[in-house]
């Protein structure tokens, strides 16, 4: 009877295509918006995740996320280094600044100052060349992904001169940083250079980056640093998570994406439920005839579920394919960096679509299951 059911459905091309495309659109909406949402949340964690060497970040207790540092005293670096279990500790500057290119264009940037010797915090992409280039006086390394925001005419920025806070700098190289939620171009300098080109303040040190000695866990080391210095110390994962939490708690992003994802669910439910209900209503007499002939309720349930699952499967495939294409073709666009279709999203959407079409089919078919087969004899 399943074969008959599928022929019944596919013969009604308008409804068949309507169902498949509707579910496809809803799946696309749900998975694409979820993928972008997860990508944006990841951007909140990226300033921390981009510094791969640091196991513990030490900061002012008021800091809520990596892009909003509160300067701490330079002495903090030495106090941290004296804590038992610290293998190394390096200064790290991160703050907003302005950069004026040679043609006079002004751009807000995130300036990162790296420890002069170790250059801890320099992204691994092209690290050797960048590490060599950054060592020159007032040399800067620009992030290739966001450099277009400064040099929109497409010129190669390397070798050009620029000004940071009226200090002349040379663009000595490029690297590729993970996209941060702030979205500003990222510029790297040596720590001492970064300190010298930023406006005078009593304290300028943003973070102390720490590596743990062998046998000491980051959590344990963070607790020791907090106890010894009174500063806040968080492991890499804790601080990365804080960046994600900051977006969740302080922006409208979860709500707006939640609405979009919810709309996807609503579209799927409405299209599936209404179209299936319409299909069943139009075929009510035929279902009545089938019941009279001796087709059981179980067989009818199997028929309708088979129809729903087939269009659900096709629609889901179209939707997931659309999202995969969006991410695949969008990966060259810097504004979509870091977005990916996680298997959890694929699996979650599959479960959701399956549940929606199953529930819709069940509610639609209840009328047939309860129907008196003698209806077929009535006018």
């Amino acid at each position, binding site marked *: *009877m399943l*074969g*008959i059911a599928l*022929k*019944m*459905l*596919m*013969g*009604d091309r308008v409804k068949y295509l309507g169902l498949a495309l509707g579910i496809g659109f809803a799946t696309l909406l749900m998975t694409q918006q979820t993928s972008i949402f997860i990508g944006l949340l990841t951007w909140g964690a990226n300033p921390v995740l981009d510094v791969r060497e640091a196991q513990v970040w030490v900061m002012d207790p008021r800091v809520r996320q990596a892009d909003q540092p509160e300067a701490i005293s330079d002495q903090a670096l030495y106090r941290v280094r004296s804590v038992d279990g610290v293998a190394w500790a390096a200064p790290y500057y991160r703050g907003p600044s302005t950069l004026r290119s040679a043609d006079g264009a002004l751009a807000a940037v995130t300036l990162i100052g790296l420890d002069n010797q170790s250059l801890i915090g320099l992204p691994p992409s092209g690290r050797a060349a960048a590490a060599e280039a950054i060592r020159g006086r007032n040399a800067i390394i620009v992030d290739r992904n966001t450099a277009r925001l400064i040099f929109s005419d497409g010129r190669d920025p390397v070798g050009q001169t620029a000004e940071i806070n009226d200090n002349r700098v040379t663009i000595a190289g490029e690297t590729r940083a993970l996209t941060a939620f702030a979205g500003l171009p990222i510029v790297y300098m040596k720590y001492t250079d970064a300190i010298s080109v930023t406006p005078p303040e009593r304290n300028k040190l943003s973070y102390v980056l720490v590596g743990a000695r062998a046998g000491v866990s980051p959590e344990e080391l963070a607790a020791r640093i907090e106890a010894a210095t009174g500063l806040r110390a968080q492991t890499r994962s804790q601080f990365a998570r804080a960046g994600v939490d900051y977006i969740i708690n302080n922006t409208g992003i979860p709500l707006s994406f939640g609405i979009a994802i919810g709309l996807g669910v609503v579209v799927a439910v409405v299209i599936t439920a209404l179209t299936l209900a319409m299909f069943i209503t139009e*075929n009510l*007499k*035929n279902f*009545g*005839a*089938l*019941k*009279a*002939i*001796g*087709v*059981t309720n179980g*067989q009818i349930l199997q028929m309708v579920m088979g129809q729903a699952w087939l269009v659900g499967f096709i629609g889901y495939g179209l939707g997931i394919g659309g999202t995969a294409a969006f991410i695949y073709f969008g990966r060259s666009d810097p504004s979509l960096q870091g977005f990916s279709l996680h298997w959890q999203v694929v699996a979650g959407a599959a479960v959701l679509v399956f549940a929606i079409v199953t529930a819709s089919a069940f509610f639609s078919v209840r009328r047939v299951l309860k129907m*008196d*087969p*003698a209806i*077929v*004899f*009535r006018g």
Partner: protein
Amino acid sequence: MQAARADNVVMEFESGGDRIRVLHGVSLDIPFGAITFLVGPSGSGKTTMLSILSGTLSPTEGAVEVMGERLDRMSDAALVRFRRRRIGFIFQQYNLIGTLTAGENAAIPLIADGVPAAQAVQRAEAALARLGLADHVRKFPRQLSGGQQQRVAIARALVHEPALIVCDEPTAALDAEAGQGVMRLLEEAAKSADRAVLVVTHDDRIYRFADRILSIEDGRIVSPPASSSEDQRHAH
């Protein structure tokens, strides 16, 4: 043994909180090897009686026996199985599924009973060929005339070789010539000694095909089976 028997059948329906009695103790017999007509005006209860005799409706009171089995005592599942195997249905509007071919439509009772689809369609196509539709087995209902569609419905009713064929106004949607053609096929089907055909109709153009005519009015048989004799055949 009669093909079907109804003994003092009462049928009541709920309507707006009231109970409406549409059959008032109907008793009748349907013999083997004959076409029995159940005739009467609209609302007389003939379709209700047909539904009860075909096992698609359970009576409020009374006994219903088809092929020696008491339908009124069967479970729902047994009733569905009984209908699938022992009864053939022909509906006024044919009730063919538009997206299935004639062969597939006629094969439905077999497929529903678990016969593999390919085998079922093969048997259905053979049944269609016997009804003169050999060239139309792959056509969809919309490609067939009304008479041809009703012949497909007859093939569907005969394909599983049922003992009782129930027909609800089988010629109402057909012109006179097509209606006569359909009735000749049913007449042929009824010739078998182990088969009976029950036709509910008010199309007096086909009364001449009846072996027996039972008339029902206001939920009561007004002409007893005994009075509907062979003499009535060809009377019209």
